[in-house]
């Protein structure tokens, strides 16, 4: 049977406010345990939450970025459950009247197609603290520094049909929140967390299958792997006559499998109700429009501009706009070199390769944009060959100096002096009489071309890659024709 996968994502984004959503405690990372847990965060008796305008503003920024309706009136609710890292016994969230309504984002897929993914809503809520289970005999240690950190939970429609689409969607959300500067988006630090709702159904069926929710997916790569693993499990289960249970599963990246979390005695019953400590939040069009006017250029607009302004294809532009820093870097190289396509090729080729290999982000890349632009110019003006340019690039990466210094010091300048090349050609012809005879006696054009190229290779080798290849071609052609 042909199966279709249906995926919806819930993405929790930690907002980059200075202070917590309902208290004036700092949200700075890396403080001593509980040094940033105030009386409100600890749920001391009589404490009242006061909403942080910064969190509201960031939620609105996101909503506008995904063309969503912004609710003029939104309400906070209590989600009741007991856990040691939740001192109040409830989490303040928005169940019924979220601040951000329906919106959408578009994603580019590897086959060149574009898909639109709906956003059902996004709401503000507070994070819980952290429980540490190791190191304490029969006890758990609780750190409430994270309690009360503002989160924006972004809930997608069940619009994704493959793990690739889900990963592309997550990347797009990441790009949007980091462009807006409303989160650092660092998945490894938990600033962005993702739960995946996954189900399968026979192709053509309109109803959804029973879904499971995968938690604990903390990298872009794991999102794809976890979903594919879970889809395989569900299909196998159904084909063997079983039924998918609606349950929460944890993804174990080491074993590449999902595992059922222990089923609770009762189904979750959070008994949501409006939080009487907080009044409805009202925002007007003046507030919303002022935020709209201040939005930066977003990934889609930037991608479109790269296509029209620099003549790139959408495929070439898409990876460049994944982060603001990478896009800025590209623009500097493109402007500095006057050759946007070469700039894109270098960035997505050699630069991306070395960044991956050394696990370096563009912000910490040792090759500055100006130097890469100069390098591209030196290939253009014939100072060095395209092949040796890679050698210069590696030297730039290793901090060996400016492009011109490296070319000079390592003697990589392309030889374009025809006398010098002629001498090289003569030497190669004299040393390789057999190859010359071979070439001259060949009658099949294609084979002859191959033998000619072998001779060009010898000359290039003799010049240590520095001879101008076009000139080598011309001179060699002349010599071989005249010796005919």
């Amino acid at each position, binding site marked *: 049977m042909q199966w279709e996968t249906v995926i919806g994502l819930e993405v929790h984004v930690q907002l980059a*406010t*200075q*202070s917590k959503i309902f*208290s*004036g*405690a*700092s949200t700075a990372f890396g403080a*001593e*345990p*509980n*040094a*940033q*847990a*105030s*009386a409100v965060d*600890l749920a*001391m008796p009589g404490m009242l939450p*006061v*909403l*942080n*305008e*910064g*969190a*509201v503003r960031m939620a609105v920024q996101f909503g506008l970025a995904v063309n969503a309706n912004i609710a003029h009136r939104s*309400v906070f609710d209590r989600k*009741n459950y*007991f*856990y*040691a890292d939740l001192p109040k016994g409830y989490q303040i969230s928005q169940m019924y*009247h979220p601040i951000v309504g329906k919106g959408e984002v578009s994603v580019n897929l590897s086959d060149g197609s574009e898909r639109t993914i709906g956003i059902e809503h996004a709401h503000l809520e507070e994070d819980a603290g952290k*429980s*540490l*289970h190791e190191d*304490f005999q*029969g*006890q*758990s*240690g*609780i*750190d*409430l520094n994270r309690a009360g950190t503002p989160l924006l939970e972004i809930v997608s429609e069940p619009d994704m049909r493959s793990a690739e689409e889900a990963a592309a969607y997550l990347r797009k959300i990441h790009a949007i929140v980091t462009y807006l500067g409303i989160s650092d988006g660092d998945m490894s630090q938990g600033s962005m967390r993702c739960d995946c709702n996954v189900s399968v159904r026979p192709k053509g069926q309109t109803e959804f299958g029973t879904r499971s929710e995968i938690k604990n997916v903390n990298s872009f790569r794991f999102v794809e792997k976890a979903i594919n693993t879970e889809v395989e499990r569900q299909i196998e289960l159904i084909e063997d006559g079983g039924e998918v249970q609606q349950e929460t599963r944890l993804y174990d990246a080491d074993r590449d499998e999902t595992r059922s*979390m*222990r089923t609770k*005695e*009762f189904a979750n*019953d959070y*008994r949501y109700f*409006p939080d*009487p400590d*907080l*009044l*409805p*939040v*009202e925002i007007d069009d003046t507030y919303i429009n002022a935020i709209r006017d201040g939005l930066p250029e977003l990934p889609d607009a930037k991608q479109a501009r790269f296509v029209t302004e620099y003549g790139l294809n959408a495929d070439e532009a898409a990876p460049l706009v994944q982060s603001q820093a990478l896009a800025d870097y590209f623009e500097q190289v493109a402007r500095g070199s006057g050759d946007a396509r070469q700039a894109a090729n270098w960035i997505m080729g050699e630069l991306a390769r070395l960044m991956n290999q050394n696990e370096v982000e563009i912000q910490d890349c040792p090759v500055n944009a100006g130097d890469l632009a100069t390098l591209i110019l030196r290939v253009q003006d014939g100072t060095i060959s395209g092949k040796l340019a890679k050698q210069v690039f590696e030297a730039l990466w290793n901090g060996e100096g400016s492009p011109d210094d490296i070319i000079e010091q390592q003697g990589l300048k392309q030889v374009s002096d025809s006398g010098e090349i002629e001498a090289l050609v003569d030497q190669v012809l004299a040393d390789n009489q057999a190859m010359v005879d071979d070439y001259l006696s060949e009658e099949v054009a294609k084979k002859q071309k191959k033998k000619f190229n072998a001779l060009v290779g010898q000359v290039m080798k003799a010049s240590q890659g520095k001879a101008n290849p076009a000139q080598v071609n011309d001179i060699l052609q002349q010599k071989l024709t005249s010796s005919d």
Partner: protein
Amino acid sequence: MSISRDKIEQVAWLARIRLEDSEKEALEGKLSDILGMVDQLQASDTDGITPMAHPLDATQRLRPDEVTETNKRERFQAVAPETQDGLYLVPRVVE
């Protein structure tokens, strides 16, 4: 509307309240009375009335995003039953 013994036990469990059998019996009557009152409220015609999220006719005041709290961990932890290395200790919580 009346409430069943099962429901009372479930709600008590959700609220982490231990009830004696005699208390359950008493609660059955009391909670059923409250639900009866809710039924009465629900019988009234509320068509065209916007539900209120809060009894006060006011909206939320927003606070500027500024850090105003200082570290008062020592004072808070002085009243905690048990702490270690700055952490609050609780009976072991296992996922």
